[in-house]
């Protein structure tokens, strides 16, 4: 299979869908001729023009709100917010409007809207450009959330998201954009809400997603050399959560850690962890472990940020401590 980058795979998904359905259009800041701040839309404007790839002013509430208004009146917009941090400027539209309209209107409005959001720390970008706010949206009924971790998944999940008649947030870690991976040419889709076992093991289950998944896989390889077999699961979606895959794995390994780059308190790990406890308490030989960023704003200095975000060394040490 040919290998392309994560960014290329995402653009391929959007381009292929836009070719097939003229109701799809794209809008966001610097997504036109500039090609997206992280190359998220490179080449789309040249192919589809001003009407379908629209540069907006710096107006995040309008980007999401206009997307919603277009979605409930017959279009299928894909909107981009440059960083998850900037979603704070559009929180009303996302939480009070996008997530609730289908429900509040008694099921009488379809909301085929994709909100594409680059995010993620470890770029030394400090407190307002490095956050992982996914738990907020997990805590908001009415949103589907995908967190693809590689080129194959971002293409397949974005295609599914674009064809969904529900709002889907696609959170893409900026440090993943340049990673390469095998991606089939042409059309395929992947289901939202399905986790993947990335590596099988019998001693401990590690559940992760997005960039941290790659750290977990690297740690699993190191531990394998020390005789410890780690089963690594990529959640892939945060809503719906595929607990079936997670719980089945925990019943096999009897130990589980959840690893994420978002801070510890009230994070995805807390939710996944309690669901594991509810479903498989009798199978657990150790408390459910959360390995997460420390509960401070993301600091700038590399020395500080590397202390806050889980490193491979920290993940390795924490896992060993569970055995």
């Amino acid at each position, binding site marked *: 299979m040919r290998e392309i980058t994560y960014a290329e795979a995402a653009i391929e998904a959007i381009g292929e869908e836009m070719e097939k359905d003229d109701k799809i259009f794209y809008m966001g800041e610097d997504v036109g001729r500039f090609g997206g701040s992280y190359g998220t839309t490179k080449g789309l404007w040249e192919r589809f023009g001003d009407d379908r790839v629209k540069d907006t002013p710096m107006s995040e509430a309008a980007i999401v*709100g206009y997307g919603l208004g277009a979605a409930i009146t017959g279009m299928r917009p894909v909107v981009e917010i440059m960083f998850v941090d900037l979603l704070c400027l559009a929180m009303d*539209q996302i939480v009070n409007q996008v997530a609730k309209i289908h429900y509040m209107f008694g*099921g009488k409005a379809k909301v085929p809207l994709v909100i594409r959001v680059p995010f993620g720390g470890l770029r030394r970008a400090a407190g307002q450009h490095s956050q992982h706010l996914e738990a907020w949206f997990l805590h908001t009924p009415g949103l589907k959330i995908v967190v693809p971790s590689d080129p194959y998944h971002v293409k397949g999940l974005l295609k599914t998201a674009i064809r969904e008649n529900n709002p889907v947030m696609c959170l893409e870690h900026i440090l993943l954009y340049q990673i390469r991976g095998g991606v089939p040419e042409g059309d395929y889709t992947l289901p939202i809400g399905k986790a993947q076992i990335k590596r099988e093991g019998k001693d401990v289950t590690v559940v992760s997603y997005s960039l941290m998944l790659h750290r977990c896989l690297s740690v699993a390889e190191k531990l394998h050399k020390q005789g410890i077999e780690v089963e690594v699961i990529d959640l892939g979606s945060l809503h719906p959560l595929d607990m079936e895959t997670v719980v089945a794995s925990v019943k096999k390994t009897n130990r589980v850690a959840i690893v994420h780059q978002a801070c510890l308190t009230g994070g995805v790990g807390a939710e996944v962890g309690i669901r594991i406890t509810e479903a498989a308490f009798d199978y657990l030989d150790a408390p459910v472990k959360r390995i997460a960023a420390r509960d401070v704003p993301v600091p700038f200095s590399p020395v500080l940020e590397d202390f806050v975000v889980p490193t491979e060394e920290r993940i390795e040490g924490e896992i060993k401590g569970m055995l």
Partner: protein
Amino acid sequence: MKLDKQLLLDMYGRMLRIRKFELKVEELHLRGILPGLKHLYIGEEAVAVGVTFNLREDDYIGSTHRGHGHLIAKGGDVKIIMAELYGKKTGYCKGKGGSMHIADINIGILGANGIVAANIPIVGGAALSAKLRGTDQVAVSFFGDGGANEGMFHEGVNLASVWKLPAIFICENNQYAISTSQSKATAIPNIADRAKSYGIPGFTVDGMDVLAVYEITGEAVARAREGKGPTLVECKTYRFKGHYVGEGSRELSYRSREELKKCQEKCPIQKFKWTLTKEGILTEGLAEKINRQIDKELEEAIKFAEESPYPSPEDALEDLFFEEET
């Protein structure tokens, strides 16, 4: 402006229907029959009617927490609205929305909205959608003087202006954002003056005069349909009742009895009735007939709502996501 007699009578009837509906809602609420929050449109009827009488069924409106008037003006069914206010399964939202979230997308009502100014970007998106689909539909956003101070007003109007979208922004300036008077919240006398900063036309009109509202928004709608972009229309009006039903005497903390009395004397329905009577269009007999007809409709609406079933408690778990029929 020379208008068809029947159109004028329909406008009068629609305003009166809103007024009487709202008085009924107030009564039912104070009797403890209707749950939740209610924000009455009484006093502002000329705005909703003057605006929506320029619209087609396939045009869009975005409404507010004070939305009953907009919904009725745009053609919402009072029976189904009333059933929603009762929290019944037969209501517009199957009891999931209530007063602040009633929508009927089939007739272009993109929803009342409990968040001030939130419909402005949504309506902008509907206008964008109309333009991209190549139709000549227009989209109207209603918001108040309070809404004009939210960031979403700026973002929403600016983008409609820069993309020349078929949108009309109707500021219903009823003088108060809950208890804060416009003079304490805005340093300019007219909200419409802000249009200049977006490079679009802006007009301030007497919102107690249905024909004045009709005429000015007619021009704005025509401009929008012709692809000439959005317009900001400020309708100076007045809220005759408190911010919400149940505010009671608290309203005297921000406005005096004298002010209330003086403003209520400018009742838009009474004023229009006089005009129509003076011109021989409306007779006492006809007025009484319209009145009785509305009373009958409302009686039927209440009966329908009362006899309708409540949703079953488990229905709360349905409709979170749209599910494809299999």
